[in-house]
């Protein structure tokens, strides 16, 4: 479903070049939920941005649903993101002047989908994330956890091949974090959507089927879904 091949990326700062990612290769199967784990500066956010087509790598290829996104231009990438990719942001990134329902519908607006169908799908997803009664409220009227549920619903509305979640629980308290992780796990199982969660928290990564650990731009472990629990720095994860 998602295949990263020999991906390298570096930033140029004057004459100096800083390597952020070095020859990363891994693959994710359809319907898997994986975690990109790493400390700050490990390159995990850069890897997420590259996989989402928001940046171009210095070297390597990224295949999503059989398409190499590295060779696409900006409009092709926009089209591709619209159909195949969903996003969940750490800070939710909802549009303040749109209602909860309108925020969820927004990716479908860019696809010229019929308003009635959009509304129907948005309400169904809000039901799934547990906030059907908040549809006509504005984001500012919701708690952080509720806003993240809206963000999750929005990421799912286009029925994407893969959803990238960038520190989805980073702004939440422990109890809400647990709730959000449970929602993601449930949706992953029921909707058969691939989730790639970027996190620096081991506790969050432990909920996924596979953990890809990055350190200083290198892939340290690629734990397969069928593997036995593997110790990473003294902490274990389950497949």
């Amino acid at each position, binding site marked *: 479903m998602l295949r990263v091949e020999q991906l390298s990326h570096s930033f140029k700062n004057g004459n100096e070049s800083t390597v952020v990612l070095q020859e990363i290769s891994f693959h994710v199967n359809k319907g898997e939920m994986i975690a990109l784990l790493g400390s700050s500066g490990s390159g995990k956010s850069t890897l997420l*941005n590259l996989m*989402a087509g*928001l*940046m171009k790598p210095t070297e390597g290829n990224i295949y999503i649903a059989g398409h190499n996104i590295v060779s696409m231009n*900006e*409009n092709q990438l*926009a*089209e591709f*993101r*619209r*159909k195949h990719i969903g*996003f969940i*942001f*750490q*800070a939710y*990134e909802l*549009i303040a*002047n*749109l209602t909860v329902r309108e925020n969820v519908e*927004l*990716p479908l*607006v*860019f*696809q*010229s989908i019929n*308003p009635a169908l959009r509304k129907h799908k948005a309400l169904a997803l809000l039901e799934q994330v547990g906030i059907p009664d908040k549809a006509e409220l504005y984001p500012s009227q919701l708690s952080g956890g509720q806003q993240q549920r809206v963000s999750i619903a*929005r990421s799912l509305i*286009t029925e994407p091949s893969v959803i990238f979640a960038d520190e989805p629980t980073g702004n939440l308290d422990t109890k809400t974090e647990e709730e959000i992780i449970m929602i993601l796990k449930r949706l992953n199982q029921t909707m058969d959507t691939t989730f790639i969660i970027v996190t620096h928290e081991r506790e969050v990564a432990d909920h996924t089927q596979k953990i890809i650990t990055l350190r200083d731009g290198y892939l340290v472990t690629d734990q397969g879904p069928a593997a036995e629990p593997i110790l990473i720095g003294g902490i274990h994860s389950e497949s």
Partner: protein
Amino acid sequence: MRVSDITRLSWDQVRRRKVVTALCVAGISIGCAAIIVAMSIGESAQLYIEKQMNSYLKMDEITVTASNGASRGGDSSSIDSETLKQGKLTEQKLNIMRQIEHVQAAALYLQLNYMEVFTLDNLTSQFQTEIIGTDLDKLTDFGNEFLQGAPSDLTGAIVLNYGATLGLIDEETRKSLQEQINANPYDDALYQQYKNLNKMLTALYQKQVQLRYYSSTGEVISRPLRVIGVLKKPTGASEENLLYDKKGYVSLETARMLKKELRLGEDENETYNHIVVKVENQKYIEKIENQIKKLSVSTSTNLYQKERLANEFKIIKAAALGIGVFILIIASISIVVAMTMSTYQRRRQIGIMKVLGANLGQIRNMFIVEAALLGLLGGLLGVLFSYWIVWGMNGLIRSFSDEQDAVIIFIPITTIPIGMLFAIATGVLSGIYPAISASKTDALTAIRRD
């Protein structure tokens, strides 16, 4: 992306960003109002002058005069060739002219001369009255209306126009007033008194007046006439101008009699000065004039005055439009600045939209529609402003003018879509740069928080 969605999202921004909206709408509305007001002043002034010209130059009339009888070609075989050959104005030609399609009226005129008109109590005007012989029954066909009385065939009867009844003062009063004015040339009160006397209306209906004519030999010849009618003041004509427009209409029979009595020339073979043909609409003038020319007569119209006027006003209106467009260009700078600021403030939102799948065109279109909506709002407000400005200007004109028919500015309905079009176009053109700039926003840079 659906048009309704683009419009809704853009309208939402217009509604939400009140300061940006207010700045842009204010600029556009001023420009739009400037265009509408400038064009309205041009149109109103043209119409006013046309109306004034029409009341004096009668642009819907053709003046037909006798020619030497030279044939001007055309199909004249059906007409009595003996009469046509001579090129004279005859009753027969008059009847032919009356038959022409779109001719409203035609009448023969026999101009006598300018004469002094005295009342029995010796009141007279400083300006002489033109005495004209015509068919009095036809006066109303030429747009004249009777204020008092009615036409009559009685010999020795006269119908006076409105101007002929103005400013009749006795000689001594006039002389004394003129002497006072000469002695105190800067006395406004005296001058105003003199002006008011000249505008004073004298009741002459059913009164006897005396025509006084000074012959070339210096002999003074008088003839009494009875005023059987007074014509109404022509619409659109100013009182000032009517002072100089003094006319007395007599029947053709009375005219012939006066001609003889006042020794205005002996003419055995009766000739008329001219025939006036009134046409239903100015647009038929040229066509009818060509048909009349086939009767071997000479014709003239004042239509060229209208064309000359239209050409002059074309320049004035173009200049007015230019001023409005210049103001709109200035206004467009405010839109570019305000919308570019708005684009910068909305970078994050644009970034999110791009991440969610909006392409360059969709982002660009949202900004352009937003700019067009600002233009539309500015245009609507500009229309309201223009009505308010015109209302104020009309109030000012009325307060400075003592004339009832002072030029009144009106807003022609055609100027409103023109103003709106310019307003929306300004909005769209001004929105292009911010729209392109917004669409080029890098999504990753825009959503990055650190």
